[in-house]
């Protein structure tokens, strides 16, 4: 293959883009509340997600209080502890991470980055947010109903999830029902939003913006959305079937059971069927959260190291490849469910194969940094923190992906440490980095650097203080989901001290997030003026006429795209970046 640009096709269409009809808000209500502008919807999504995420953060503190200092707090009963575990997990995975990456960043960045005025179906986009908000409210309502929220664990495994022994599932309790209804609403709301993200990437791109000129952020969010559209129905099916079991007395998942000496009406159902459905959603979900993070981090590294991303094509292929592979690994969450050994072998193999495209991405990030002009800005610090954390979490994934290693480690704190590293800390690092990176564009002002430094270092060091010892705690055999260990012979005394240490670290990390939120709020008024393109980045969102971008994003004329998103430090160019909508060919540019 020869590396020459393709010759011009003779019949090039004119460089104009047909204008779309744009909805114009007329009042305060339609501009800021029932808004159809993707940027406002993005902020609505983000604020809601962060608000419910704070609830989940407090729940994790309560759990750590119990684990670090057992029996000190009377109100944390075992039932309450299970409720905290369940709600913490479900909120963080679905209502925070998924909503923030796709609803928040997706809405804000897709139209701006592909050069569109707005999402293609703004009205449906608005509905998406309101249905999401309703789902969150239903979830929050479960804290206030008799019996409290469900305590079934975030995986909601039947039969226990709907039996009377589980908190929120006793006769007359509403916890589990509200949980399932909330999930169904979330999926409906997400589908509305997801249609927008996909069709906007397919149809809304500016003239010249080919798929291979899109920033990797858009590739990550796009692929994750396609996956979510195909995977969330599995959760919907599982939720609907479990609602039938609970409310109408069918036996999809429920085997014959005797409860308190009484034969229940259920019979013959298969709890394993639920596990298959749940993890058919649950494993792609890991990558639904990870792929946007991969994409965003690629862009952060490229911008803040002033270098083009290494292996752009390979990065795109890896994103798509990971997305496809993640649909055939779900049963590695079920090694201990008694499956056929050949299936275990099959799923261990597919799981390990995913390590290949993932490792390609890690190498490419590192090679992008190699001899780059690295600026240790706050977004860059978080991006570097992500790479390290993701590698650490990914390596323990290789342990757990192997059946023989997984079986003894299953249901220990090792698993908890693993998935918090890989899909808790790592994506959150990217979210933080992304918020710092795009904050100047969203508000027109710069964040406070000192508070940002404090936030990063406490979060980064603190997260390791929490989760590194937790691996050890799991290795010595401490099971997950136990509110209290007691004094078992198989666990060494050192675990008690470690648990207290982990809890203290968790409080510190939580406190740093409050500093972060304060920084966001404080800088809105007091931050210095950031200008339109403070990072001197190439992508279209930094080339808007106004900062923050007005309604319609690009002023009078839509941008035309002349190059890919990574022209940094191009030899011969007058500056160390060339914007995507800059038509000047480099060879004609005057060297400085």
């Amino acid at each position, binding site marked *: 293959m020869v*590396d020459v*640009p*393709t010759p011009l*096709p003779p019949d*090039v269409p004119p460089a104009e883009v*047909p204008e779309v009809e744009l909805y114009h808000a007329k009042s305060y209500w339609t501009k800021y509340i029932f808004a159809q502008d993707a940027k406002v919807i993005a902020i609505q999504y983000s604020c809601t997600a962060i608000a419910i995420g704070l609830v989940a953060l407090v729940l994790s503190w309560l759990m750590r209080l119990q684990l670090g200092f057992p029996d000190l707090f009377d109100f944390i009963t075992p039932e309450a502890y299970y409720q905290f575990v369940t709600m913490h997990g479900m909120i963080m995975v679905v209502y925070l991470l998924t909503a923030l990456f796709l609803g928040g960043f997706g809405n804000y960045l897709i139209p701006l980055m592909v050069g569109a005025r707005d999402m*293609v*179906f703004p009205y449906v986009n608005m509905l998406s947010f309101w249905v999401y908000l309703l789902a969150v409210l239903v979830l929050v309502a479960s804290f206030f109903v008799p019996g409290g929220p469900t305590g079934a664990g975030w995986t909601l495994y039947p039969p226990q999830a709907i039996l009377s022994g589980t908190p929120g599932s006793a006769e007359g309790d509403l916890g589990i029902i509200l949980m399932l209804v909330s999930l169904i609403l979330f999926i409906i709301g997400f*589908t509305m939003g*997801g*249609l927008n993200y996909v*069709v906007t990437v397919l*149809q*809304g*791109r500016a*003239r*010249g*913006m*080919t*798929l*291979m*000129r899109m920033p990797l952020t858009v590739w990550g969010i796009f692929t994750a959305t396609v996956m979510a*559209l*195909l995977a969330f*129905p*599995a959760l*919907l*099916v599982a939720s*609907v*079937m479990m609602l039938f079991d609970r409310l*109408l*007395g*069918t*036996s*999809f998942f429920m085997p014959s059971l005797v409860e308190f000496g009484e034969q229940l009406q259920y*019979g*013959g*159902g*298969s709890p394993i*069927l639920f596990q*298959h*459905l749940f993890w*058919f959603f649950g494993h792609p979900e890991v990558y639904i959260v990870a792929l946007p993070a991969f994409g965003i981090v690629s862009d952060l590294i490229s911008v803040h190291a002033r270098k083009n991303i290494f292996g*752009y*094509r390979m990065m795109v292929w890896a994103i*798509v490849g990971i997305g*496809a592979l993640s*649909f*055939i690994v779900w*049963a590695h969450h079920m090694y201990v469910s008694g*499956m*056929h050994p050949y*299936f275990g072998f099959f799923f261990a193999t597919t799981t390990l194969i995913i390590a290949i495209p993932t490792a390609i991405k890690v190498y490419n990030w590192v090679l992008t940094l190699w001899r780059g002009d690295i600026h240790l800005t706050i977004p860059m610090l978080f991006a570097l923190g992500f790479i390290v954390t993701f590698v650490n979490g990914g390596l323990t994934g290789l342990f757990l992906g192997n059946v023989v290693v997984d079986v003894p480690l299953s249901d220990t704190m090792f698993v908890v440490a693993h998935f918090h590293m890989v899909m808790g800390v790592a994506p959150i690092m990217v979210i933080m980095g992304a918020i710092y990176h795009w904050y100047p564009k969203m508000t027109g002002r710069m964040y406070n650097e000192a508070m940002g430094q404090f936030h990063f270092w406490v979060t980064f060091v603190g997260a390791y203080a929490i989760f590194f010892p937790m691996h050890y705690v799991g290795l010595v055999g401490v099971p997950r989901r136990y509110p209290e260990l007691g004094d078992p012979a198989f666990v060494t005394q050192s675990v008690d001290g470690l648990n207290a240490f982990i809890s203290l670290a968790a409080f510190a990390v939580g406190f740093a997030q409050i500093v972060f939120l304060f920084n966001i709020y404080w800088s809105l008024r007091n931050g210095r003026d950031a200008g339109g393109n403070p990072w001197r980045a190439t992508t279209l969102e930094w080339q808007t006429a106004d900062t923050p971008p007005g309604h319609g994003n690009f002023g009078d004329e839509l941008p*035309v795209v*002349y*190059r*890919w998103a990574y*022209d940094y430090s191009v030899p011969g160019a007058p500056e160390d970046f060339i914007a995507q909508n800059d*038509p000047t*060919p480099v060879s004609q540019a005057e060297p400085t």
Partner: protein
Amino acid sequence: MTVILLFLLILACLGAWWLLRQGVMSKPWLETGVDTVQPGSDRMSPHLAKIGLGVFLTVVGSLFALFLSAYFIRMAYADWRPVPLPQVVWISTGQLILSSILLQIAVIAARNGDRTATKLSLLFGAIAALGFLTSQLIAFGELTSTGFALTKNPANSFFFMITGIHGLHILGGLVALGLLIADAWNDGPVERVILRSELCATYWHFLLLIWIVIMVVLIGWADSFIAFCGQFLP
């Protein structure tokens, strides 16, 4: 999970073919300028709504593929007793086919500019769809009264649930169809009526296809095929 995996395999093939056509093998760092872009590869046709509907129908397809996957897994357990399908489902199948045909006629009429024929075929299409829903309710009642109630056996539960969810989709489609009929009756813009008719007809054809797949599965014609695939997959 055979059904959903087959569904996803087909999607993956389509996706790979599309990505190759969209130039994922190109080297964007070498290709500057708008003129080097292959015409059409920076954006596709302007039919946003049609693409949107296509994406939505893919999600609907995924949903039903998952329901059917669950059906086949649950079917392998000992307590499964197949449901004798009530005769009325054949009538409802006929009504849905009729409805689909009428909507297609409406599309053709709308394209030919024949307003009266458009209005009438849309209206009768909607009536046929309502008839379908009524027949389904009769089928539910018949099953319940002859001892095949929802909770008696998982096969019954699946029959009620899957056809019920399918009915809900028809009901949602009827809302859109109702809006279209109102638009056509108020002599809305021709282009809009044509587009909306096409969207409704596509949705109806797809739901008819899903209905036929559901019937094939519920009657049991797909059992041996699935049993064969089940040897290889969980």
